[in-house]
């Protein structure tokens, strides 16, 4: 009885917070989902229900040289090819180490792939039977090799090999690809452009942020002197107002008087037009963003590092492990929950990049050609400047979907490697 009462009291205490959450977080979120099915800027003056057409409008293709289905086919054939050959290469390397049962697929399938890649990508591409055949073979090679070690132990190498072989296949075949089609569509659809820009930013930003903040974390842990100073110094950008920080960087990036170009000039490098070049927009924003956040993530890494039991290091030292080995075999695995957390959080953060662009480029999406149009910028612009609340809500939900899917993939792929039992 007493226990029950305690529960009730506990929930009662939660109610005020819950009410605030519902009112200011969940309700607006739900309402904006509802709004995403309405066209709010109409000739009749009030919002009208339009079903999914806001979503369709966001992904309109405009005039395109070939159908998305065809592009998908070509891309998948290329992927299958890259996958089969990569499996074969890695399988043979592994076979060199120990006996494998899967010799036959490892020998026959790649030969088939090598013989048929040229005809399928140039002549027969678009033929539905060839397409299905490739998928089946790709799937079979996965099925036979799925228990092999290389999937686990050399993921990055394997992915690189996939990418490399994909590019090779791209250059053998016709210039038809999902990636190219995506770029074609982006020229006439600013939302697709914003997805493109955002992914570009994320790909530069997240790995570098993780690498630099891990380095900062290690530095902060191992420094003999000035620990407190460095912790404060690294953390300062994170607590500073992002607008003030961006204004500061605006001057550092300045073409004529900026300190960055001045430093480059010491090494004889000609000045870089950081702020007025479409191709440099996202790298420029990423530099600012990394600088802003590395101290914060560094501190999180530091707390993880301090939680690792010293006994492991002492044992390793007695065994004669050098500092690199200690990092690879002790620090990195035991830090994995923190790394996982930082990857998830920084990825979500990176997808929401907005303020940096807004301030660096004078409230515009980049210097020209919409090169700084990120998804949040698109949402902001559509909502406030174009008053298309329905469309903006739909775009916001697409962003939510992308972030959710990516986070889910991260959870699925990394949960087995994360060592929670420190």
């Amino acid at each position, binding site marked *: 009885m007493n226990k029950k009462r305690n529960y009730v009291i506990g929930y009662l205490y939660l109610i005020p917070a819950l009410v605030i959450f519902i009112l200011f977080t969940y309700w607006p979120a739900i309402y904006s989902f509802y709004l995403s099915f309405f066209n709010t800027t109409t000739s009749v003056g*009030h919002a009208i229900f339009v079903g999914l057409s806001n979503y369709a409008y966001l992904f309109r293709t405009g005039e395109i040289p070939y159908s998305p289905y065809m592009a998908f086919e070509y891309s998948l054939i290329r992927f299958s090819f890259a996958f089969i050959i990569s499996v074969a290469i890695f399988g043979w390397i592994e076979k060199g180490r120990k006996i494998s049962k899967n010799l036959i697929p490892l020998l026959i399938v790649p030969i088939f792939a090598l013989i048929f890649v040229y005809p399928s990508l140039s002549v027969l591409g678009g033929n539905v039977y060839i397409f299905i055949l490739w998928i089946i073979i790709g799937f079979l090679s996965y099925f036979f090799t799925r228990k092999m070690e290389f999937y686990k132990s050399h993921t990055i190498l394997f992915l690189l090999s996939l990418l490399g072989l994909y590019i090779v296949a791209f250059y053998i075949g016709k210039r038809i690809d999902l990636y190219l089609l995506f770029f074609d569509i982006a020229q006439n659809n600013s939302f697709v452009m914003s997805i493109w820009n955002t992914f570009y930013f994320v790909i530069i930003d997240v790995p570098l942020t993780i690498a630099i903040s891990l380095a900062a974390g290690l530095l902060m842990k191992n420094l003999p002197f000035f620990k407190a100073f460095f912790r404060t110094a690294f953390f300062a950008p994170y607590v500073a107002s992002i607008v003030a920080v961006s204004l500061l960087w605006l001057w550092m990036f300045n073409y004529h008087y900026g300190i960055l170009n001045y430093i480059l000039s010491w090494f004889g490098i000609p000045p870089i037009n950081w702020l007025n070049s479409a191709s440099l927009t996202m790298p420029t924003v990423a530099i600012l963003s990394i600088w802003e956040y590395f101290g914060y993530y560094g501190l999180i890494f530091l707390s993880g590092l301090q939680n690792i039991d010293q006994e492991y290091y002492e044992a390793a030292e007695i065994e004669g492990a050098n500092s690199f080995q200690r990092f690879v075999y002790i620090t990195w695995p035991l830090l994995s929950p923190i790394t996982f957390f930082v990857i998830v959080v920084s990825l979500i953060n990176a997808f929401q990049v907005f303020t940096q662009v807004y301030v660096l480029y004078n409230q515009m999406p980049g210097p020209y050609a919409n090169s700084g149009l990120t998804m949040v910028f698109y949402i902001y612009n559509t909502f406030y400047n174009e*008053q298309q609340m329905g469309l903006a809500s739909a775009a916001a939900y697409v962003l939510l979907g992308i972030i959710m899917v990516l986070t889910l993939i991260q959870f699925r792929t990394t949960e087995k490697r994360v060592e929670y039992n420190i």
Partner: protein
Amino acid sequence: MKRVIAFLIIAVLGLASISLAQKTEVIFWEAMEAKLGTTLQTITNIFNKEHPNIDVKLVFVGNGDQLDSKILAAAQANTLPTIAQVYPAWAAALVAQGVVTPMDSFPDFTTVASQLYPSIINMSKINGRVYTLPFNQSVYVLYYRPMMLAQAGLTPPKTMDELAQDAKLLTVVQNGKTVRYGLGFRTTYGVLTAVARQFGGGKYITPEGSLIINSPQNVAALTFLVNLVKEGYAYAKFDYFDNELTTSSVAMLIGEGADLPFDLSDIAGQKDGIEMASFPVGISDQKSPLFRGQTLVIFNTATKDQQNAAWEYVKFLLSPAVQIYWAMNTNYSPLNKTVVSLDQWNLFAQGTSYNPSAIVDGLANGISYSENLPWWPSVIDNIRTAVENAVHFTMTPQQALDWAQQQSIIVQQKYLGK
């Protein structure tokens, strides 16, 4: 009992006196920053003094875009002010929502209208009625550095051909590096429109509603600008030009009159400061300035008294005395046509170094930079992107405007529900 009665009498008298003395309150949401804000406050104080039964309260709501989004929220929440400054496209959206009282429904509207330039009345029309009236409109002018022109033996260009010629003559190249550009311009929708106006274009939609963004005249104007950049005589970017002016790396600059108190104030007042000239004319061969600014809307959500009081305030803002004071202090164009014939203005124009007559030149023939259409901001975005792409040579002027045309048609069709 006596005490109670006495208390009641006092209470009733007290309440009555409060209600009798109560002023009609007009809440004005405005976006006038810095010096503009203080000038508007001075004007409003005079109005409040002259109208003891009206109390206009200025509420500064940030810049124009912030004000627009605040109004958007207020329209949904039914907390609109009495009167507000909005961009023309936004005004059209508010009219479509049915929250705006037309200006032409107020008494003696025709008297007020007859004092304003017809161009101002024309640009305030939405669906054939005058719903709004502007009081802060700025025209595009040509800024130039007088010392630089004098050294080159030039007078300010009067035609577009002369502009191109002078830009070439004023460009200085040292050791293969351009240290001074003849002309600077921002890659905005407004700059293209102001130039296109001189090429017989500058209109992006026909009265019937077909888009003509890639008309030959507009393409010619964009080509003119792009060629100047290509030949190295002009420098174009989206940002403001304060740096280039302080370091003297541009000799002429396309800008708005109202830029003067802001971005150009760094060097205005210096010995080799900055002066204005009327926008050079092109093949159209007549002065045809481009207006840019906000407009006033009175909301029908306010009480009748408040709306009438707001109308009194609008009339006051557009009166010659206020318009001349406003123009002298902010370099916005005076919209009341009697201003130019006043001695006070002529004395000011002659006695002021930066040549204020440029902001009144050809006002009768001006047009607004924006169409009064709720979807126009998207078109502005598309055209701005086209200008950027052309000026940075990622597209030819024709391709860029074709692209903007195609994108804008999609936006228009979405608006029309097609």
